[in-house]
């Protein structure tokens, strides 16, 4: 079988135009409730001229994912290609994964009894979940399974400037390198935002 390398997201700060299209694509395409934001566009150095830029972040599908380590139910599983998924049937909605996550990725609806947190939801890299692939249940609980369909995840697919890209690590790094070279910056001189935290030893 084809051996995957790790799947990674990369958002190019030189290209992101803060249009929030990825957020909307994810929200609508995965039929998420309003209070769930799997992907969010955030702005750095807001208001500082020349230094302001935006990035789109979601779950980074970390190496040794801290969320999976702290989960008291151990309902996470990490696919061979590095995609971090979890089982919503087992999840108790305790919120610990959110506290462990560097990127604020885990999301919680307030639909538990007495307005307590419901079960966790986060970016699946559009790879569905543990329910049978393409089943009604998978779609309802986890959203689309575009990876199984051989398609690019929704958010990256719709990004009009190709700022947001996703793929196996080598491929993504290759693209970053080419872009930096084209800019005349020479070699890749810094790790993309958050990679040092999400993939510390790679």
């Amino acid at each position, binding site marked *: 079988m084809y051996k995957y390398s790790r799947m990674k997201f990369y958002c190019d700060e030189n290209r992101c135009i803060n249009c929030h299209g990825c957020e909307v694509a994810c929200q609508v395409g995965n039929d998420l409730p309003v209070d769930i934001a799997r992907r969010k566009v955030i702005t750095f150095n807001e208001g500082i001229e020349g230094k302001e830029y935006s990035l789109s972040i979601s779950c980074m599908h970390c190496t040794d994912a801290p969320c999976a380590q702290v989960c008291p139910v151990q309902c996470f599983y990490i696919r061979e290609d590095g995609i971090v998924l979890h089982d919503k049937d087992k999840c108790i909605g*305790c919120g610990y994964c959110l506290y462990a996550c560097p990127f*604020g990725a885990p999301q919680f609806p307030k639909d538990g009894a007495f307005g*307590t947190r419901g079960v966790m939801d986060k970016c699946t890299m559009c790879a569905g979940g543990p329910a049978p692939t393409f089943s009604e249940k998978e779609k309802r609980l986890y959203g689309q399974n575009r990876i199984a369909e051989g398609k690019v995840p929704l958010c990256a697919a719709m990004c009009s400037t190709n700022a947001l890209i996703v793929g196996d690590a080598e491929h993504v790094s290759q693209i970053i390198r080419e872009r930096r070279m084209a800019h005349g910056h020479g070699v890749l001189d810094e790790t993309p935002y958050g990679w040092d935290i999400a993939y510390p030893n790679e």
Partner: protein
Amino acid sequence: MSKLASMLSTIMILFPGVAMATPDIIRQQLPQSVPHYWKWGSLFVNLQVNYFKVFFLVALLAIIIIEFLHFVIIGPKKFRESGKKIRVYNLFVRIVHWTAALSFTLLVPTGLIIVFSKFFGGDGFVRAMRSLHFIGAILFAISVVPLFFMWVLHMLPEEGDIRWFMVGGGYLTKKEVETGAGRFNPGQKIWFWIATVFGTLLFLTGFLMYLRKPNFVIPFVKYQIDALRLAAITHNLIAVIVLIMFLVHLYMSLFAVKGSLKSMITGYKDEEELKYMHSSFYEKIKHKLNE
């Protein structure tokens, strides 16, 4: 009214974040809080992965073993029934006590089930236990205020308390010793302070986790996600202490002194028990009894 308004505005000036409340502060703070992760984020992961479960398990097993040994070796204290019953708890006190007791009886086991939810398989059962934990927390919040005020004056340190510690509370021997304790013994006093003060801290940290996205900045903590992490850390650490003291209190009232449970139900204690287990208190009320 204007006084209240000026008080509120003072608070807002002291904590500017309160005034600038917007719904998703976690999200807004991401640019700054992500690089800051190594502080409280890593600490939470480390504690949750390596320590919390161990703390709870060790505390639970150690206390159960100690209590079992005490029960086998020394056994419950039985006092000769003089037949003379003295009213020590009025109806109000008993109702408040039992509301608080019910809240802890809900909170402690459900809290432990959440901690060990892998063992219980997660899923709907543990989610239901989380709901019960929340109900317990509301019951606690209702009962803690009257509980605190009805007993706080009796729970301050007294002279006889030293003697109580010297004789191990009278629990370390089968013999009947005068312990020197007043209306409440120092053990009960310690439990009172832990239950009310630490219980309130548990309620506040738990409430923060309940809100999950509180739309106000928590004073003294820079990033809201860190406030949640600190809440989870504090909640777990304090819960270990409360768990220990709760189990001790449970054992004392159910097994260590015969009739102890009955007294909180009926409100009456036997004169013989008071004479020894609360001897200073007994000295004080003795003259009234003989009238």
